[in-house]
């Protein structure tokens, strides 16, 4: 593990030693609500998956402050290049739970038209939350290219590329950071060091003293921050965003956090994560930690907390009901969006599929179980 001490703002008792987050009361509560929504969304998705109503989900428990803290440092005109464990950033910026649930159910209203696995979101409004890819790290150089385009046009847009500790071993991490530094591209690289890449530990991923140190060799600042501390993440990412926006080039931020759940709903982390690690990180849960701050600031009581939870839970449950009741995508969506215009061979293949369905009936849905 890194010997560099991560920056922390929120003390265990909720104190912040005079730190000013630069957020209004409403904004502070919005941060809290967003973190809570991530957790409740996850909770419901786990139930939906266990009852066979959705195929798969990716839990975020423990990472909420990293996601929301980083998102809070961005403007709506900035872009997010997310990993598959980042949807709190989308929620924070106003993507609705129902839009996300459409993806979880892979229905006709899903922005990806049911073509991707659950959790592989793609949004363009109200913020660019870039289409998620399963191959690790591929989005990192893409964020750099998008940043180059913005810079070329003289825009002050910043790209946030987020990935896990495992992502730092990918080809895209190396090429992305290298290109960004050479081009002084307006990008913030956010490494969410959550302890595990599926079952592989940080020590199995790198012999470096943590991940932020890698920035030095690429020629950019590297910063380590307490990823369970909303304000610390917001502070560090805001500084990096400001540097990028004003022509100072990229930054690598390492947020030290912990994945309290499995890699996905198909993974049981108890087989490889020591129980004491879960216990020690449970005590650092970012949500109760932020609650203490809010309570201390007079913004949250146990009553308002309970009401908020009830409200968010109802919204998410309603989203799931709506999404489940929405029809699946039509057969024609297999063939559209491969190209801007439908080529002749795909028109023919689509026609063959329709003709066969008319003659022999629809294909039966399979019952495959995803292992990862």
């Amino acid at each position: 593990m890194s010997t560099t001490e991560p920056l922390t703002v929120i003390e265990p008792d909720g104190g912040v030693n005079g730190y000013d987050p630069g957020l209004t009361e409403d904004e502070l509560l919005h941060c809290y609500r967003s973190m809570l929504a991530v957790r409740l969304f996850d909770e419901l998705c786990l139930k939906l998956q266990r009852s066979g109503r959705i195929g798969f989900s990716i839990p975020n428990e423990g990472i909420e402050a990293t996601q929301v803290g980083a998102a809070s440092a961005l403007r709506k005109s900035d872009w997010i290049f997310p990993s598959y464990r980042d949807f709190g950033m989308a929620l924070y910026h106003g993507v609705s739970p129902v839009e996300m649930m459409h993806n979880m159910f892979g229905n006709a209203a899903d922005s990806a038209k049911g073509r991707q696995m659950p959790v592989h979101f793609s949004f363009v409004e109200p913020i660019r939350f870039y289409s998620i890819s399963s191959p690790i790290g591929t989005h990192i150089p893409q964020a750099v290219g998008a940043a180059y385009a913005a810079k070329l046009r003289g825009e002050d847009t910043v790209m946030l590329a987020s990935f896990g500790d495992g992502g730092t071993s990918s080809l895209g991490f190396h090429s992305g950071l290298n290109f960004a530094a050479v081009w002084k591209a307006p990008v913030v690289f956010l490494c969410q060091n959550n302890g595990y890449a599926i079952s592989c530990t940080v020590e199995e991923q790198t012999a470096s003293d943590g991940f932020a140190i890698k920035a030095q060799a690429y020629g950019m600042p590297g910063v380590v921050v307490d990823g369970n501390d909303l304000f610390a993440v917001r502070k560090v990412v805001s500084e990096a965003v400001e540097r990028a926006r004003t022509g100072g080039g990229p930054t690598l931020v390492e947020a030290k956090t912990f994945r309290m759940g499995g890699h996905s709903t198909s993974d049981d982390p108890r087989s490889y994560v020591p129980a004491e690690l879960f216990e020690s990180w449970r005590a650092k849960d970012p949500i109760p930690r932020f609650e203490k701050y809010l309570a201390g600031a007079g913004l949250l009581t146990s009553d308002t907390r309970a009401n908020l939870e009830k409200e968010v839970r109802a919204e998410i449950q309603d989203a799931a009901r709506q999404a489940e009741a929405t029809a699946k995508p039509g057969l024609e969506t297999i063939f559209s969006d491969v190209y801007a215009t439908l080529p002749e061979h795909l028109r023919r293949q689509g026609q063959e599929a329709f003709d066969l369905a008319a003659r022999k009936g629809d294909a039966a849905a399979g019952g495959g179980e995803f292992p990862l």
Partner: protein
Amino acid sequence: MPTLTLLQAINDGLKTSMREDDSVLLFGEDVGKKGGVFLVSEGIQAEFGKERCFDSPLSEDGIIGTAIGMAMNGLRPIAEIQFQDFIFPAFDQIVSEAAKLRYRSGGQYTAPMVIRTPYGGGIRGGLYHSQSGEAYFCHTPGLKVVVPSTPHDAKGLLIASIQDPDPVLFLEPKALYRAVKGEVPEGSYTVDLTSLRVVREGEGVTVFCYGAMVPVCEAAAKEAEKNGIDCHIVDLRTLYPLDEEGVIEAAKRTGRVVVVHEAPRFCGYGGEISAMIAESAIEYMEAPIRRVTGFDTPFPNTLEHHYLPDKRRVLDAVEFVHNY
């Protein structure tokens, strides 16, 4: 109309596109100051500046990955891969990302970009400067694959590729860079990205080919003519998506088919052409379909001229299907 080499026609196509659209830019290894190792981009940095024509770090994954990002954010990048043999670190970015982006985002994000790369043998480049990898990419829905064989087509197909809303792999037959010359219209024009070119009309044997194999097949056809065999040569030029109807029509015309490419035979592009004809026009066939291809070996250096299909081998196959 000026007469240009294939290389000059590509250079002209790049400059024409960059003049008419500010969002077009060109980058890759050594494309800036030097103008590319083959000098395809000579003079471009001088005319358009370092922001629109520049050298990148030596990373094919980085070149294609960043080009995708530029493309999704409003630019029309042309990414050069110095040799097609070096493209494989970027295979993931091309196949899993650029080609799938429109589909996986329901059209929210797209990658209108061109990947230009010299491919094929003929320069004694051995294993790693000679390969023809088109089959890997033609197996990839979402990608377009283009191979010009004349200066006219090189410029027109390149401009069409740059204007296309989807990613295009533009394979440049390096053996032809300076070996073919032809008339090239000035200014902007396009050649349809799903279209064949009938190189030579004939009634005896249909020969399908593309890239540097086109002049080889033309030479073989001249030789065959002396023996009374009239070849119909089709330059496939837009390999994917392909004008499949045009292929079937050309196959039916003679009922005798030879397919020629440099790449290895097994699972090569010729297999697809053969299967297509077998599925749609087998009753018209008067003879077995013959493939003339590179061997199923890595690409050799000293014996390159044996590996590459030549006039002899094409002629031999043409005679076989003609006399069958």
